[in-house]
């Protein structure tokens, strides 16, 4: 879980952010700005400053925001000059866009704003549809517009070439002003702003909807904000039937606005093609007399605050019913409210102006349970001073409780100022309703100052838009005030605290402060606050009472990801007892060493105890004899002989202590055959791999032994329920590990998997398999460094732990297990046929496929009966139309074809009689495993330089491709200690390319090969340990007419797979000429290839001849690969069926031991591919 930020503005206009991993508000420093509003999303934050301009803060990313500008140079041939820029009058311009309709000379390209910069000058693109062109990059045609080829022919009369230039967004991690064009014509400054809408379109486009409200109550929409254009282009006014005061836009299609009279407007018609929506609908205020002052929307929720500070939750809101059905009053008094990611709710309290978090908001309980105050100190004053920021920070964490105690005191004391008490006395306030307000202690010894505070608070909340005032360079007030309050004794004897003003001066300071907040004098205030802090630190040698009570004006959680398993350290505030506070101080500054103190003591004492009580008495008789333990159950078994069918069997596992004290076991399957009772058995120590096989009707799993793998016939069993199957699998895998005496994480090489006589068997059967029963469609390992990628493109690094998942509590370690999540989409298809009477309907022909089906049409999949891939996955969204289907769709997501099944296209033609559209629904897996997330860039492919076991490697080369196709090189990955943080690396280095990429591989001596999305291959030159990113790309022509898909590089071998399933070997790769000379065809029907560090070649092949039919996703190994014979001669077929990814890159041992971690990792996830082939799985005879 990467950390994300909660943004807030305090009443003085200072912007702070709080990291989900952090424990203090970080002041977002920008020299001269004070802000009124912020609205954050994950990648950026928009705001309105006190100068009424709109500012944007884009978070820096290791992948830069780049935009490719292109223009075409066109030429025509004439007999005199040959090709020249003299075109016919009817021709296009000499410089044009791709269509030729727009005049586009190089000089006309301007940077959109001063926040962009050019990466380099214009250059010619010599890549034409994946193939390299001649120098000069010209492509030829008979005439404009026509089909261009890269070869010049006798009839080529025109030619053109493409010029490209990249511009890069440079204003990152800083506030930049968005030029507001309309304020010149119309002096109507903005009053509110909201950002959202990122879930409406798919990720690569990255569109955002930005809405703003002006002081006159008009609503504006910012057009064209997307990934390549973070600033957007222009403001467009959206007509409204009234005066709007505030607006809120959710991540999806919800947009609500508050009218001046207190009613609400709901935007309708917001969709993929129209982020702006089409019309407004009015919704009444929840309570008749009291209008709404604030509204906040999420994906499926609407919250509102009325004038009397009451909080309301809108029932029944969703995409289909944006207006919802009714209001529910909630507990708590708030001034504003904000809905963040996953519909989490943040608010600012009316009384204390503290930031509140709504606890317990889940998909099933959107209204949450209770308000919880976020109480963490702020960094600003302290880290400004020259004192070491880190020590102060830890001090702040340590004494968080105390800080809170005093700040609360002054804020509440005016409520009952007459109850004078001695300083420091603690009285908990009664709790109000179900909202667990923290126990707020009151210190009322200094009621005078407290009243001042409450006065000031009133003033500030009244002037929401403060008028511009003169700047008064006066000392920043809060710190001063704090000094006074920090220790009541010092007020009485000012001599103790040097530099403390007498009390009356607070009145003046108070005035000054009011002006300060309203004027642009923040700079002066800040510098003086610095000095005041310095004085303070010197004068008062007391660590308590450092901070001004944070009073907030605005909060935005749109970029803040909080989920049920997120651990927040924000709520550790006021403590009621001395013991608690010291305990809490412990828990606040948790470090491994500290938590280990009590744990370590328990470990030590336990082993001491065992020694004391048992060591001298081991000759005593044991009270309980070790006996055989049998677990029995009923299952179904896929009969080994013909006719194959599921038969009911009794299944039993007998566990006993083996000779060496190891536990061993035998599996028995009791069945009846011809009315005769028989049984079959299998020794647990012979079991090589346990595979859960996802099947629609049954919960099946397969058990392999070396012998059964050879025969390609595992023992297949089906349990009655999913849960039962998991119980059995967990138990069996523990028994397997027990019988081999394996307890612990996989080692660098051997444990991942091993071969025996050419057959794969995982000697560590299920460790990895069960441990991470989901992600890593892609994983690479080298010398103990293991990285993987989830379906949602999140990168994970193996921590060296073991267990997790449904292993929990049974045999997993707790140290290196992290929470893992993955998100993927499940797709179903809606099919329709055209008939002359009613047009397209869901009435098909009797011979047609189901009207709701899977991709093949063979299986009925309705919205209701489709389930997530396994019970571990849960739905996290509703069904939505998927527009990102290969082949394109129309506006409603339909694809058309002449008949089922055929090739589909995105626009309706006269010949089309059927159509289909794809529906997607996201599901999410939350589990635990020995994997740690590598934020923040989503990846699609990854490769690690394979190294031999003997080499000592300081730095491991790791390259990756982001989900947008950018090539990245990871710095700082080392293998010094496997599974430690050094495997994690430090940062990404972006490697510039002209086009998006999809596959990458690094081989021995830093040979980096990559495949672009257009199917062309590239070799990276001059990559070395010293120059990890290399210097330039060499375009390698693809095999004729083929678009490459995947590449894998070993010691000297380079293999690629193309989109038609052909496997190609690169000839002539030598150290002096690493690009090689030509491609040689090796095999067809290959899905994926992995070349090991010793040039071992493993593939996943389709259509491998099985006993009954063809099997897909079979793991095969190339035989006869020798140093002089790198291509090998034939295939050896391994465990068949359903594999999707393989990597042998960790195994640098001489044959026959091969490592293929991800194989075991992801088989459960990929197994569904296989449904139709299941019965034939492993029915493939050897040597076909």
């Amino acid at each position: 879980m990467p950390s994300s930020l909660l943004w807030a503005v305090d009443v003085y206009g200072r912007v702070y952010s709080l990291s989900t991993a952090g424990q203090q508000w970080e002041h977002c420093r920008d020299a001269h700005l004070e802000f009124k509003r912020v609205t954050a999303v994950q990648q950026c934050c928009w705001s309105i400053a006190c100068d009424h301009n709109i500012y944007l803060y884009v978070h820096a990313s290791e992948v830069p925001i780049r935009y490719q500008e292109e223009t075409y140079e066109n030429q025509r041939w004439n007999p005199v000059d040959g090709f020249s820029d003299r075109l016919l009058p009817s021709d296009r311009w000499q410089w044009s866009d791709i269509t030729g309709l727009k005049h586009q000379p190089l000089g006309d390209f301007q940077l959109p704003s001063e926040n962009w910069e050019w990466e380099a000058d214009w250059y010619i693109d010599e890549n034409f549809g994946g193939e390299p062109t001649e120098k000069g990059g010209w492509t030829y045609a008979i005439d404009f517009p026509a089909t261009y080829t890269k070869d010049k022919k006798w009839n080529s009369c025109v030619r053109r070439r493409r010029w490209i230039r990249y511009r890069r967004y440079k204003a990152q991690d800083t506030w930049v002003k968005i030029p507001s064009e309309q304020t010149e014509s119309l002096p109507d400054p903005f009053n509110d702003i909201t950002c959202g809408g990122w879930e409406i379109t798919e990720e690569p486009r990255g569109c955002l909807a930005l809405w703003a409200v002006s002081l006159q109550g008009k609503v504006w929409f910012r057009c064209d904000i997307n990934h390549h254009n973070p600033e957007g282009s222009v403001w467009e006014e959206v007509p409204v039937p009234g005066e709007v005061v505030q607006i809120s836009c959710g991540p999806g299609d919800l947009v609500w606005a508050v009218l001046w009279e207190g009613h609400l407007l709901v935007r309708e018609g917001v969709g993929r093609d129209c982020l702006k929506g089409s019309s407004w609908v009015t919704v009444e205020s929840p309570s008749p007399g009291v209008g709404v002052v604030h509204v906040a929307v999420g994906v499926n929720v609407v919250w509102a605050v009325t004038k009397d500070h009451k909080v309301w939750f809108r029932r029944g809101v969703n995409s289909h019913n944006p207006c919802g059905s009714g209001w529910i009053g909630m507990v708590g008094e708030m001034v504003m409210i904000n809905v963040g990611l996953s519909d989490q709710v943040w608010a600012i309290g009316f009384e204390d102006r503290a930031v509140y978090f709504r606890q317990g908001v889940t998909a099933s309980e959107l209204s949450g349970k209770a308000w919880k105050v976020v109480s963490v100190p702020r960094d600003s004053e302290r880290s400004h001073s020259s004192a070491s920021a880190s020590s102060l920070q830890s001090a702040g964490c340590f004494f968080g409780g105390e800080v809170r105690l005093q700040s609360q005191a002054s804020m509440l004391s005016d409520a009952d100022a007459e109850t004078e008490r001695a300083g420091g006395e603690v009285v908990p306030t009664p709790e109000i309703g179900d909202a667990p307000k923290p126990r707020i202690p009151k210190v009322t010894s200094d009621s005078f100052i407290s009243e001042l505070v409450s006065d000031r608070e009133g003033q500030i909340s009244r002037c929401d838009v403060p008028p511009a005032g003169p700047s008064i360079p006066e000392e920043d007030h809060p710190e001063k005030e704090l000094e006074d309050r920090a220790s009541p004794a010092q007020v009485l004897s000012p001599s103790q605290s040097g530099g403390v003003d007498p009390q009356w001066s607070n009145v003046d300071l108070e005035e000054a402060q009011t002006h300060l907040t309203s004027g642009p004098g923040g700079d002066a205030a800040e510098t003086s606050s610095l000095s005041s802090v310095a004085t303070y630190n010197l004068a008062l040698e007391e660590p308590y009472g450092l901070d001004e009570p944070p009073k907030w004006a605005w909060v935005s959680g749109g970029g803040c990801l909080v989920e049920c398993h997120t651990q927040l350290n924000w709520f550790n505030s006021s403590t009621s007892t001395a013991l608690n506070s010291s305990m809490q101080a412990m828990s606040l500054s948790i470090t491994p060493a500290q938590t280990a103190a009590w744990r370590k003591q328990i470990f030590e004492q336990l082993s001491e105890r065992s020694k004391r009580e048992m060591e001298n008495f081991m000759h005593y008789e044991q009270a309980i004899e070790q006996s055989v333990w049998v677990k029995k159950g009923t299952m179904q078994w896929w009969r080994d002989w013909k006719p194959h069918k599921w038969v009911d069997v009794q299944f039993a596992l007998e566990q006993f202590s083996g000779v060496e004290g190891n536990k061993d076991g035998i599996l028995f399957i009791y069945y009846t055959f011809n009315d005769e009772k028989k049984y079959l058995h299998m020794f647990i120590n012979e079991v090589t791999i346990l595979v859960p096989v996802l099947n629609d009707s049954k919960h099946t799993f397969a058990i392999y032994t070396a012998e059964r793998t050879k025969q390609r016939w595992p023992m297949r069993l089906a349990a009655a329920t999913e849960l039962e199957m998991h119980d059995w699998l967990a138990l069996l895998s523990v028994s397997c590990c027990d019988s081999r005496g394996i307890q612990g994480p996989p080692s660098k090489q051997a444990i991942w998997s091993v071969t025996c006589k050419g057959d794969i068997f995982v000697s560590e059967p299920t460790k990895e398999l069960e441990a991470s029963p989901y992600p890593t469609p892609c994983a690479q390992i080298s010398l103990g460094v293991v990285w993987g990628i989830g379906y949602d493109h999140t990168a994970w690094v193996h921590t060296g732990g073991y267990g997790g998942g449904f292993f929990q509590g049974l045999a997993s370690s707790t140290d290196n297990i992290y929470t893992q999540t993955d998100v993927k989409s499940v797709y179903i298809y809606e099919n329709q046929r055209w008939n002359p009477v009613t047009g397209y309907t869901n009435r098909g022909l009797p011979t047609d496929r189901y009207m709701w089906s899977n991709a093949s049409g063979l299986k009925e999949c309705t919205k209701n009966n489709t389930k997530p891939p396994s019970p571990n996955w849960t739905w996290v969204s509703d069904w939505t139309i998927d527009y990102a289907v290969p082949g394109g769709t129309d506006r409603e997501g339909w694809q058309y074809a002449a008949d089922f099944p055929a090739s589909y296209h995105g626009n309706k033609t006269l010949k089309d009689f059927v159509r289909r559209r794809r529906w997607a629904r996201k599901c999410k897996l939350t589990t635990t495993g020995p994997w740690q997330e590598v934020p923040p860039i989503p990846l699609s492919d990854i490769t690690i330089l394979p190294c031999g076991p003997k080499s000592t490697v300081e730095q491991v080369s790791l390259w990756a491709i982001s989900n947008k196709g950018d090539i990245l090189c990871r710095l700082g990955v080392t293998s010094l200690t496997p599974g430690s943080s050094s495997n994690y690396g430090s940062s990404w280095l972006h490697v510039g390319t002209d086009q998006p990429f999809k596959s990458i591989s690094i081989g021995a001596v830093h040979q980096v090969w990559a495949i672009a999305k257009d199917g062309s291959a590239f070799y990276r030159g001059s990559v070395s340990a010293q120059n990890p990113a290399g210097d330039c790309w060499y375009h390698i022509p693809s095999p004729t007419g083929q678009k490459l898909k995947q590449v894998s590089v070993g010691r000297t071998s380079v293999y690629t797979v193309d989109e038609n399933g052909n496997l190609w070997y690169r000839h002539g790769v030598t150290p002096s000429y690493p690009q090689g000379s030509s491609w040689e065809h090796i095999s067809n029907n290959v899905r994926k290839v992995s070349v090991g560090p010793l040039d071992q070649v493993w593939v996943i092949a389709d259509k491998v001849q099985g006993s009954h039919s063809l099997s897909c996703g079979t793991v095969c190994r190339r035989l006869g690969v020798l140093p002089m014979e790198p291509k090998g001669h034939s295939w050896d077929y391994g465990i068949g069926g359903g594999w999707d990814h393989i990597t042998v890159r960790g195994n640098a041992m001489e044959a026959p031991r091969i490592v293929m971690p991800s194989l075991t990792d992801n088989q459960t996830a990929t197994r569904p591919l296989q449904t139709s082939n299941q019965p034939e799985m492993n029915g493939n005879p050897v040597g076909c």
Partner: protein
Amino acid sequence: MTSLVVKNELNASCRHLMNVIMADDKDVLRDVWFGRIPACFTLSPEETTEREAEPYYLLLPRVSYLTLVTDKVKKHFLRVMKAEDSTEMWFEYEGTPLKWHYPIGVLFDLHASNTALPWNVTVHFKNFPEHDLLHCTSNSVIEAHFMSCIKEADALKHKGQVINDMQKKDHKQLWMGLQNDKFDQFWAMNRKLMEYPTDEGGFRYIPFRMYQTMGERPFIQKLFRPVSPEGHTLTLGDLLKELFPAAICAEDEPKRFQVMIHGIEPLLETPIQWLSEHLSHPDNFLHISIIPAPSD
């Protein structure tokens, strides 16, 4: 052949790795389960025997129950007894009848910690102390007691939802795991009882029992949450403070009490939730013995 070689290599590399890796929380469960107390059973001199009875030595599992694991003892002594005296066997340590329905480890910690090992237990057949002990006529009585403890504990932890969701055979698995000393068998099921929603930070209430030798009540048991209303993790220290403040001594004071769980004294800052998950007995209760500190 190849597989054998590989296996051995695996074992070697695993062992190495195990040494490197720090002790794990799960190891605590094993240590707790496999805790043994050496005991020497002697027949009470009051018993009339046909010939002299030899003492009987046995390693008793700390987490089990006396009457569950002393079949051998009974057999041993019955050999020297007259048949008509073979009534119910009961145990006594230094004059205190031992309650079989407390786990063995608790009995030992409470009455005999800080004494020389083995633990000298006197075996009686006559004069069953009706006031002090419950009858235990068969293992099914122990099973009933054990299961009712587990149910009570789950009622505290999860309002009884987890144990009620289990099937009869699952209950049996828990019991058989204890009876046959099968750690895996027991924990395969017991782990479900140890789960809790992540966002709540722990069980609803911690099932615990606090024993004293001198107290007028057999043990103290109260509702105690693992997390304070303010969201702080509560510790063993917090629990003692509420229920037995005398056990917490100021730094300068001499220690008056020992707080024992499974024969060890965890630090007071140990989170109570962690203790409940790792140092509970198989009956899912955290049994805490408070004994006077040895005077030396």
